[in-house]
């Protein structure tokens, strides 16, 4: 009988990523409802210190797989190790973040386990008949589907910023189990040669609480400095519309929308963005939307909580100064 809710905890430079902590927080709530143990699985090298963080965030048990071959993520090695642990432990559900790693790992793991996968979920509820029901956006958020799994374990990746972080409880302790990394040779065929992380003091677009985004109204790549100044006062990420990316002003990794990133920050500030349906699909589930646009008829005003009809080059610098007064 399958038992347990497993969270595949992602670490980067020996720090647990925020989405994994969000999953432990939500996993704790679900485990309390279903009576299942909440188990954190952490892969990497030199990761002993992360067990206490996982326990404080809600895990009843922490499985550590510590090996030089797992220091950096590779599809094959991580699939090899996780497949064996999951087959041995037979959990009800296995959850991970819909990050670059989650997007690459989860389909491979699902296929090896012969199970389905609910990817990029933005909601999860317990259900008497199917254990868990997942809500996930389709058509980039123009509609939602609710998925259940007919087999066990249930696999899902969950979008960052979906679940609230619970305050860590340092008095919590967890059983810590160390497993050896049992990696099949066939899973080492793709070799990681180099990792290049762009030096940025700004948060990742998909994990940011606040995003300041610029569109065609920015008029050119040189003008993004005024958005960056605003973003840095409030710890925001900087995004762009497809129009700005297709004009070559920003790289595609900054694009928000149906053919870019789908984001759900607490606050989205759209500057010089008209609000095409593809853009709204990518940011429409933001909790709070602010629009600054010269065109009073711009579609973005139909979804904005606060709007200013005006020239962003006049509005944004004043806003930056006002934010400085508030956050100092």
């Amino acid at each position, binding site marked *: 009988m399958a038992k347990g809710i497993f969270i595949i905890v992602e670490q980067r430079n020996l720090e647990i990523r925020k989405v994994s902590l969000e999953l432990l927080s939500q996993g704790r709530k679900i485990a309390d409802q279903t009576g299942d143990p909440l188990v954190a699985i952490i892969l990497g090298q030199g990761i002993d210190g992360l067990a206490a963080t996982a326990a404080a965030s809600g895990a009843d048990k922490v499985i550590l797989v510590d090996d030089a071959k797992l220091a950096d993520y590779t599809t094959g090695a991580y699939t090899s190790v996780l497949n064996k642990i999951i087959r041995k432990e037979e959990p009800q559900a296995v959850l991970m973040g819909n990050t670059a790693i989650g997007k690459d790992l989860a*389909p491979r793991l699902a296929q090896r386990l012969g199970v389905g996968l609910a990817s990029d979920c933005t909601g999860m509820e317990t259900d008497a008949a199917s254990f868990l029901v997942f809500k996930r956006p389709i*058509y980039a958020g123009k509609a939602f589907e609710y998925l259940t799994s007919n087999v066990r374990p249930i696999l899902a990746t969950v979008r960052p910023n979906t679940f609230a972080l619970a305050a860590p409880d340092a008095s919590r302790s967890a059983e810590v189990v160390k497993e050896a990394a049992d990696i099949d040779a066939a899973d080492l065929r793709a070799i*990681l040669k180099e990792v290049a992380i762009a030096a940025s003091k700004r948060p990742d677009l998909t994990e940011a609480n606040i995003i300041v985004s610029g569109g065609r109204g920015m008029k050119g790549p040189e003008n993004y400095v005024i958005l960056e100044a605003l973003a840095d006062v409030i710890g925001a990420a900087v995004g762009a519309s497809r129009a700005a990316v297709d004009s070559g002003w920003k790289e595609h990794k900054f694009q928000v929308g149906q053919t870019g990133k789908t984001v759900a920050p607490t606050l989205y500030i759209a500057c010089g963005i008209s609000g095409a349906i593809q853009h709204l699909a990518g940011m429409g589930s933001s909790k709070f939307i602010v629009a600054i646009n010269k065109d009073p008829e711009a579609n973005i005003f139909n979804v904005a909580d606060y709007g200013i009809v005006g020239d962003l080059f006049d509005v944004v610098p004043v806003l930056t100064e006002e934010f400085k007064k508030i956050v100092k």
Partner: protein
Amino acid sequence: MNIIVYIKQTFDTEAKIVLDGSGKIDANGVNLIINPYDEFAIEEGIRLKEKFGGEVTVVSIGGARAQEAIRTALAMGADKGVLVTDPALESADEWGIAETLAKAAAKVPCDILITGRIAIDDGASQLGIRLAEILNVPSISSILKLDIEGTHVTAVREIDGGTETIEADLPVILTAQKGLNDPRYPSVAGIMKAKKKPLQTFSLADLGLSAGDLAPKMSVQKYTLPEARQAGRKIPGDAAPAAQELARLLHEEAKIL
């Protein structure tokens, strides 16, 4: 070098989504396009053929209308088309589609298979990687750059906040991210030629599969549409006082800052 490009026909990104009487996504009157990420895959496949020789076979799974998508890829420069079409595939999940595609891929000589990193309709982003697992080959997902020398593949892929470089030997499966290339438009001559290029159609039975083999692992309970957002308020006045008022509202009323 023989290349398979898997493409999916999707709704146009302009499409407004509505539900039909039975609560399902209504495809009536919707413009269909090649999934934009699959266009990068087609372009990369054609470039590999132009460099190394061989053939590009475009494979799709879908209804009769998916032939249009395959013809477009053939007009861009792909050589052959394969469409797997069967009513039983309508209820298949990502697992079942991957199993079906694996059988279809086995009918075509292939050193490298490329597809888009995600389909903009279901947003599942699973197929290429699942297929690699079935075919027991390495996969490199979300690639931005590709170099092949002999049988050695070097690809740069996007990760959160940066990139990584992965090496593997053929055969491999790759999924294409925006930025990999700039897809060409079909030329008039290409469109004429495409009409004469071979397009084979397979049913599940042709692939040795039955509907029962594809019993889905996942079930859709229901579809919903997002609640319409209400337009909020426009802050009147000149730029400077409006910006000051906006900052005050975000701080005091919305309590975000």
